[in-house]
């Protein structure tokens, strides 16, 4: 199919014809104009942080992101736990779906462009065992029994070769990952050992940790004991080595005042934000919220859990934003499975299959990926999958951490998972208000001017070619609502100009001759 006709078809159906990496110009080399950088597009990939929120127990996705396009069926199959349509929280530009009433914080983030929803995530041949399903997600392996490492562990061991030997060092003085807990998740197990430092209390950690071992252990230990002694000693050595870094970071980073009280997740995210603010270069933070196994009387339980989730996440991002660190951070939620589309007789839900995943923070480009669950095509009363969870992992690795394709494949155990456009623009020709932006002259030769509605501040402007690559061009601000693009050094071809303002996103075609 010729690209042109493909585009035309798509413009009619509003499908996703092509995507492009939208993290910003700097990701694509040194040529980015100083203007773009000054707009604060995106920090260097080395400084980016991922926060993982595990929702333990199997979150009921269908009551989390509610299918406003199928309310009749929805009400029918779960009458005893259905959320009233009038109470469902609305999403900007997305009529087909809304959020559970207690996810007010998520609604704000969504409508502010800081939250993306990936619908119907799961994997083929689902396990309905908490244990097995968790392991599948942790390890990124559909048959996890033969894999001993977690996906984040593999990524970090790949990224920081040789760990733990020679760590900490100048390039990486801090723990690779931190879990706010006493024990670290399987997701953070590297091929040899956990890459995470599990910390409960940053203030007492250094004081408790003691000294590193002095004399070598017996050379005659049996194999098991030798392995365990070796492991404990390496934990002692690393902890001692990291303790000072942590102490310094914890004392520099202050706790934002605006976290909700009595919120188990907020308590953990508060520590994470403090460490980020304190300057740690740790790549991954891991926190958990449990209690999602709602087999009975779920309305109150679920309401309480989602309130904690949304309020904590919103407070965390706002805290980072107030400290101008929000461009370093994205977060991801996951739960081992969704729940049955049909509710059970105990006003609860049994173990199910697909459920939505949330990605939040900086660089979000596509906010709703996929469709509402198709309630008229359930699989044994379960919601069918639309996205494999490893597509989300691949997106975070490819686009957020900028890991090359081969490494992503290795981290995901050889599987090829198509990236979902969380961090990539979805170009459709149906964006609502592009007429409000003028590009002239068009076609253009040496320069083109771009004018947008007054009162909106420019956040970002990009020139994108038809294969989805961003072309760095010098940009100069002329007026409060006008820029000029210098086109002299780029190829003569068709482009799309993408303009993001404080109010909206616009795109216009531009032919350079």
């Amino acid at each position, binding site marked *: 199919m010729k690209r042109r006709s493909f585009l035309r078809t798509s413009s009619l159906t509003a499908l996703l014809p092509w995507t492009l990496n939208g993290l910003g110009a700097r990701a694509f080399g040194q040529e980015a104009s100083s203007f773009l950088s000054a707009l604060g597009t995106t920090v260097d990939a080395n400084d980016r942080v991922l926060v993982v929120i595990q929702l333990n127990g199997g979150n009921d996705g269908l009551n989390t992101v509610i299918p406003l396009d199928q309310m009749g069926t929805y009400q029918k199959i779960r009458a005893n736990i259905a959320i009233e349509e009038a109470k469902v929280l609305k999403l900007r530009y997305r009529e087909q779906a809304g959020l559970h009433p207690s996810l007010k914080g998520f609604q704000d983030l969504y409508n502010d462009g800081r939250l993306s929803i990936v619908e119907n995530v799961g994997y083929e041949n689902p396990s309905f*065992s908490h244990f097995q399903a968790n392991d599948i997600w942790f390890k990124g392996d559909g048959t996890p029994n033969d894999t001993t490492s977690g996906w984040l562990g593999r990524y970090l061991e790949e990224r920081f070769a040789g760990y733990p030997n020679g760590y900490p060092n100048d390039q990486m003085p801090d723990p690779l990952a931190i879990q706010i807990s006493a024990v670290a998740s399987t997701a953070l197990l590297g091929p040899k050992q*956990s890459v995470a430092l599990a910390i409960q209390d940053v203030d007492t950690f250094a004081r408790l940790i003691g000294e590193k071992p002095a004399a070598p252990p017996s050379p005659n230990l049996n194999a098991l004991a030798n392995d365990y002694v070796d492991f404990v000693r390496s*934990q002692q050595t690393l902890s001692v080595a990291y303790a000072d870094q942590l102490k310094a970071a914890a004392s520099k980073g202050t706790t934002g005042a605006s976290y909700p009280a009595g919120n188990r997740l907020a308590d953990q995210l508060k520590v994470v934000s403090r460490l980020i603010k304190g300057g740690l270069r740790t790549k991954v933070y891991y926190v958990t919220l449990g209690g999602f196994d709602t087999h009975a009387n779920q309305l109150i339980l679920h309401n309480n859990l989602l309130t904690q989730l949304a309020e904590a996440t919103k407070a965390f991002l706002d805290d980072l934003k107030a400290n101008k660190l929000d461009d370093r951070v994205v977060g991801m939620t996951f739960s081992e499975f969704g729940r049955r589309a049909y509710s059970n007789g105990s006003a609860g839900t049994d173990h199910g299959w697909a459920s939505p995943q949330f990605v939040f923070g900086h660089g979000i480009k596509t906010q709703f990926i996929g469709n509402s669950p198709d309630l008229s095509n359930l699989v044994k009363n379960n919601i069918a999958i639309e996205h494999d969870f490893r597509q989300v992992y691949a997106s975070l690795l490819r686009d957020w951490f900028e890991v090359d394709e081969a490494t992503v494949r290795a981290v995901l155990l050889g599987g090829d998972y198509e990236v979902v456009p969380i961090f990539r623009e979805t170009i459709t020709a149906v964006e609502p208000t592009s007429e409000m932006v003028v590009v002239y002259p068009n076609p253009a030769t040496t320069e083109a001017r771009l004018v947008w509605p007054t009162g909106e501040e420019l956040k970002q402007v990009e020139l994108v070619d038809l294969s989805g690559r961003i072309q760095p061009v010098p940009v100069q601000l002329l007026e409060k609502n006008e820029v000029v693009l210098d086109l002299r050094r780029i190829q003569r071809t068709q482009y799309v100009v993408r303009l993001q303002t404080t109010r909206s996103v616009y795109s216009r075609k531009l032919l350079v001759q």
Partner: protein
Amino acid sequence: MAWTATRTQPLAPADIAHFLRRTAFGASPAQLKAYKGRTAAELFDTLSKVPAPPPPTDSDGKTFHDLGWGAPETDQQKRNQLDNQRRLQVKKWWLGLMLDPQRGFAEKLTLFWQNHFVTESDTIQDVRFQHRYLETIRRNALGNFRTFVIDITQDPAMLRYLNGTENTKDKPNENYGRELMELFTLGRGFYTESDVKEAARVLTGWKAINYRNAMTEVISSRFLAGQHDQDKKIFSENFQNKTIEGRPGDKGGDLELGEMVDMIFAHPESARFIVRKLYRWYFTGEISDEVEKNFIEPLAVGFRKDRELNPLIRQMLTSDHFFDPALRGGQIRSPLDFVMGSFVALENPVLSREKEREKYDNLTNNLLYRTKLMEMEVMEQPTVFGWRPYYDTGYYKIWISGTTLGLRGSLTDTLVSGANRFGVEVDTLEWVASFVSEPGDPLVLVREVWGMLMAVEPSQAQLDNLVDDALLDGIPRYEWKEIWDKYKDKGLEDDLRNRLNPLITYMLRLAEYQLA
């Protein structure tokens, strides 16, 4: 070597210590003396026979499992608070029992089963249910496994925890049916989703009675035939397509449950499943093909015949394989092993709940808090599958992190320094003098203290380091004898303690001490 053959000769001190570290929480000098020359079978028979403990009580010494819910409070909110407090009392009561070296074996076994048939106190929310559940476990811990499974299936706390009480003919709830097969009897991969649904139907009709009822002290479970699915249930080829006929009447629930348990037990995997789980608890986290063939399988064959737990566990814990040197140090101690084992090894006097109630409450409260921080709070497993190292092979290491090492070290530091936070005092001098053969020789002293505390051998460099840096701190070795010999002089006792305390504190922070 016949792996399952009974070790008949009298046990060496190191073997006795090994037995106590694994089958209870730890070994003390006094126990090693008392059990000198015993065989493994004698130890098993002595330690496994302890009377049932007296019930938990409030701080005023009165029992509460035999009252209405939250009684005598009348206000709903106050009842709730009181029940919360009492559920904490049950946890503290249990920790108190674990601290008693005489009960170590029984409590470790009780803990095994509580972690097998998990319920969580915070979910149960009725202390009477919780207490009854623990009684069900204690009663069956060395009994018949078939009876055990049936009792626990009908236990009111379990009916609440896994929603059995909500599982009715018209509104089946799959929760218990799934966990019964996956976690309690068979393991993943040996049943289908349709088996889960059929099992749930077999289990319809059971009810927990008088949950959070303040008006009565009687709690129980009951079968309601009217809520039971009386159609036939058909299972998959995992169970030879077994059909369980629907049984009408009040006996229907019992009959169908019994038939289903027998059906599950007919699966060869069911016996192996339990033997393996005991192996991960008492032996080590890795199960090689060799262990599977030479140990698990022969024991499973025996267990399959009658499902009697006493002979099974006895054979495992008195076997040649149990004493195999290749398994020494083959466990990373769980937080409870570590905490209780440290108290036992250093011979803290056991506080009397009756006579020293305030101290006892403070101590158990402190231990509850600490074990919770180390992620092993009793009766609050993170999920229904229990603590991971015992559910799955190869996960002992998750007990150890920078944080848990810090918490473990802080506990033993406090214990030795006698900072009085525990309300009990360790006298390191008396302790060392009670078992070290030649305490005037610093190397002998260090080596024998090592032997008392550790499951594995030290290197010479470690011993030297302990003698010269931790104990003597610069003074020449030959001067130690003089210091020790003078220790009866009052003035020098504290000097001695000032040297022994750092040594022991340091040893308790070594990697080797994390092993059992």
